[in-house]
């Protein structure tokens, strides 16, 4: 009996050990996690403490780090190696988990952490080829000795930090998910860069447009998905002449109807990834110095996508935001120049239908012959499960991201191959480094030549007074509409062979109007000789920015801050009065009348307290669906809708249009009827969701902004922020998306700058600096940036100094 009890006790103990030492479903390993000596308990604010001296193995000389009141490190190093080593070391100190997790996401290695539920995600990610693109990129970058040094210094710095970690100081998410960091490599940095390229250029509508063309005809597509959308105010003003002899692309390939895409829809990054940037010349500013502003719009998460830093060596002094996981400053300024980015949105990804010989996918048809595919085997390691092998073919058109769904009439299986410019080797690190040390417009644009992907609009303002913008990147030479639809990957038609030369890219310098700007709209007017794509953002944001910049004079910081936070809804200004005119007041209920009156009195400014802003937005969405849902529901899915400006134009110009009729009713609807119906549906829907018309209908409450943790774990994010703005508005703040960094720089003798991003320097959810900027970001406030020239600090300043001591 005693023996039995003893064995039982030991078995119970063993079971407890296993239960508490391992993750159970979504519950962390409680023994480890709750351990007050090394569990989450030790991830408190003590990790924020600033030491006076840290002994760091691997530095060449000593490095001085000045911390400001927001814990932005200002790094003073004596050589290039040390400055990037320190950047890696300090970024890892604040953001290690985030930077490593993002590279796992990019590489399709999430299953290694969270198990079998991520296998499909990983498989997709591998087939998109981010990993092999990163591998090739590193091979390419390593050929440049300076890039190699920078990447390796950064990696060494990260690894030195990782080695210094104890179970107690390990970032909290590792404890939550029960794993440990691995050694950082330069490949991880390349993965991160490719992931950004994917996020910014991975979206296009070729599959949908092919389906729409097959169902509704070529004319429908040409008319409602045009390259030049109504009211477009392009980045380069239409008056600019293009003085070069353009290359002539081959004739556009004949229409091709893919067999494969019918039941597919692309999984793509957020359509709303966009941004604003602008610069005004000294002629228009109160100080006489040029001012530059930028706010890149991205998915908003915690820890934040950006890490603020100043990097100083004898030959460089640059300040701005960096991507945690990559060296150097991506958006920022130095003593002589400032720059900002917006997404170019030109087409750098094409899809090709590939005809394979058989379901081994080892050979495909090209120019009438069977060509060998390059087979790639991916090993997906699964936490708590068996390793999954995934084999896919790489063709001359890129990796076959999709296959196995469709067979041609001749019995041959097909696949969809993705041709993407970011798969080609390029050295964006060299470009970024070149920008960081650039001293004028010429050296800035020279540096940009190495920046192939993602394509970006680079805005520039210099101390010498120059302002400029360039629609930069590596863009294939295309015939008109080439890349708008899935192509037949069976011959040379539609293949990418030549590129638009750098000196012929859309660009302008010191225009007569005294400002440059971009907001993801079309880069050029019709007189530009090349076709670059069609999926640009509508006119509203860009046009509003240009209206304001044209009207403003004697510009001060304050004006630029107001423009960042500008909530004027140009689309509502255009459409709302027109829509209201179609409503018959007699048929409305009392509440509907009240809402209509509020809409009528609304000044089109989408401030957070505006109920009308949210009602209008919903009304518009209902209207879009009323017009397009029946036609564009093809193979059980709503396909890509025409843009807002196209739909608006149709409504304004046509009393009656075949699309206004709902095909699912016997009645014949016209414009008036669908506008009314959409209004009633909107009010009914909102009442159901939000209750009676009142506070809950305010834009800041009904929508607001939720900033989630990267793992979407409740408790680690900041949901329910009271924000205004929205789509097509300069302040492009949405529910989970928006201005990820707001920066304004005045290029005087010593640059003056303000900036803020919705988060904080620390990635530790237990830190004060995890989300300390969020409330100020919501209010549209900025921080004064300390652009330091020396690491000397006085005793009364809020700055603190850490010496990183070279320790052998």
């Amino acid at each position, binding site marked *: 009996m*005693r023996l039995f009890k003893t064995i039982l006790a030991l078995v119970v103990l063993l079971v407890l050990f296993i239960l508490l030492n391992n993750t159970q479903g979504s519950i962390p390993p409680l023994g480890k996690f*709750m*351990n007050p000596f090394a569990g989450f308990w030790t991830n408190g604010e003590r990790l924020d403490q600033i030491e006076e001296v840290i002994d760091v193995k691997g530095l060449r000389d000593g490095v001085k780090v000045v911390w400001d009141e927001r814990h932005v490190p200002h790094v003073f190093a004596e050589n290039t190696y040390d400055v990037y080593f320190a950047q890696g070391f300090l970024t890892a100190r604040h953001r290690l988990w985030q930077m490593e997790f993002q590279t796992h996401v990019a590489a399709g290695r999430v299953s290694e952490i969270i198990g079998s539920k991520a296998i499909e995600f990983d498989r997709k990610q591998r087939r998109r080829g981010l990993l092999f693109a990163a591998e090739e990129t590193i091979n390419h970058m390593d050929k440049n000795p300076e890039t190699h040094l920078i990447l390796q210094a950064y990696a060494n710095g990260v690894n030195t930090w990782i080695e210094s970690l104890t*179970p107690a100081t390990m970032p909290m998410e590792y404890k939550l998910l029960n794993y440990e960091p691995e050694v950082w490599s330069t490949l991880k940095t390349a993965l991160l860069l490719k992931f950004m390229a994917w996020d910014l250029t991975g979206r296009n509508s070729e599959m949908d447009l092919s389906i729409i063309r097959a169902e509704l005809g070529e004319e429908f597509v040409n008319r409602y998905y045009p390259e030049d959308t109504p009211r477009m105010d392009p980045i380069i003003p239409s008056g600019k002449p293009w003085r070069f002899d353009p290359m002539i692309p081959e004739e556009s390939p004949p229409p091709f109807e893919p067999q494969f895409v019918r039941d597919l829809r692309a999984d793509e990054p957020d359509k709303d990834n966009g941004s604003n940037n602008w610069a005004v010349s000294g002629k228009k500013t109160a100080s006489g110095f040029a001012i530059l502003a930028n706010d890149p719009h991205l998915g908003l998460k915690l820890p934040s996508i950006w890490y603020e830093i100043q990097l100083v060596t004898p030959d460089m002094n640059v300040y701005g935001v960096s991507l945690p996981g990559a060296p150097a400053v991506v958006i920022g300024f130095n003593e002589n120049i400032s720059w900002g980015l917006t997404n170019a949105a030109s087409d750098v990804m094409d899809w090709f239908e590939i005809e394979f010989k058989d379901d081994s996918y080892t050979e495909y048809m090209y120019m009438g012959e069977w060509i060998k595919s390059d087979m790639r085997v991916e090993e997906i390691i699964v936490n708590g499960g068996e390793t999954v092998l995934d084999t896919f073919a790489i063709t001359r058109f890129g990796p076959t991201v999709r296959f196995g769904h469709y067979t041609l009439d001749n019995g041959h299986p097909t696949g969809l191959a993705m041709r993407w410019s970011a798969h080609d080797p390029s050295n964006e690190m060299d470009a970024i480094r070149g920008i960081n040390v650039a001293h004028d417009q010429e050296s800035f644009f020279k540096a940009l030549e190495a920046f192939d992907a993602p394509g970006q609009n680079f805005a520039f303002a210099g101390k010498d007074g120059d302002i400029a913008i360039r629609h930069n990147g590596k863009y294939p030479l295309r015939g008109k509409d080439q890349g708008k639809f899935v192509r037949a990957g069976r011959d040379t038609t539609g293949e990418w062979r030549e590129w638009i030369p750098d000196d012929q890219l859309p660009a302008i310098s010191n225009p007569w109007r005294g400002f440059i700007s971009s907001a993801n709209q079309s880069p050029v007017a019709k007189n530009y000789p090349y076709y670059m794509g069609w999926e640009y953002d509508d006119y509203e944001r860009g046009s509003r920015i240009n209206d304001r910049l044209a009207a403003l004079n004697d510009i001060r910081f304050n004006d630029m801050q107001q423009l960042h936070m500008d909530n004027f809804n140009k689309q509502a200004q255009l459409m709302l009065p027109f829509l209201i005119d179609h409503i018959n007041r007699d048929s409305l209920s009392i509440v509907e009348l009240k809402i209509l009156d509020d809409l009528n009195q609304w000044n089109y400014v989408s401030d957070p307290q505006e109920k009308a802003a949210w009602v209008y937005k919903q009304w518009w969405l209902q209207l879009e669906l009323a017009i397009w849902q029946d036609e564009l529901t093809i193979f059980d899915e709503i396909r890509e809708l025409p843009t807002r400006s196209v739909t608006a134009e149709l409504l304004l110009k046509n009393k009656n249009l075949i699309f206004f009729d709902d095909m699912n009713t016997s009645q014949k609807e016209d414009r008036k009827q669908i506008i009314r119906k959409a209004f009633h549906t909107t009010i009914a829907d909102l009442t159901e969701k939000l209750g009676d018309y009142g506070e809950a209908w305010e834009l800041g409450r009904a929508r607001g902004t939720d900033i989630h943790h990267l793992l979407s774990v409740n*408790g680690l994010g900041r949901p329910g922020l009271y924000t205004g703005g929205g789509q097509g508005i300069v302040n492009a703040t949405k529910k989970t998306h928006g201005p990820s960094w707001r920066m304004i720089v005045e290029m005087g003798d010593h640059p003056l700058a303000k900036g803020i991003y919705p988060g904080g320097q620390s990635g530790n959810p*237990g830190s004060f600096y995890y989300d300390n900027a969020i409330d100020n970001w919501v209010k549209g406030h900025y921080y004064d940036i300390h652009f330091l020239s020396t690491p000397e600090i006085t005793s009364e300043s809020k700055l603190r100094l850490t010496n990183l001591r070279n320790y052998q």
Partner: protein
Amino acid sequence: MISTLISLVLVFVLQLLFYSWWWIILVPLVVGFMEKDSVSKAALGNGLGVFALWSGMSLYQWLNGGEIIVTRVAEVMGAGSGIVLVLATGLIGFLVAGIAGYAGFSLRKVVIKEYQVS
């Protein structure tokens, strides 16, 4: 109770040096094995020792710069408040160490008895 004190101090020192949570199994197992008198002393004594250590230490962490992390984790775990987390931490310690103390004590009885028989 002497076993309470011994396991508290031993676990404290070992965890300060080596962090791992399973010291709260190993130490009570040994301390329980050394306990000659009563099973309740072995089980309860170890359990209370580790309960005091784990709840005390977590309280200390909470009050020393742990406010933000404790608030957040309380929400992550649906615990409501930091006190619940402190108690839960202590209870895990009590449960594990108590059973380990009991197992150590029983093991001794089995081993000693068999030794006597042979």
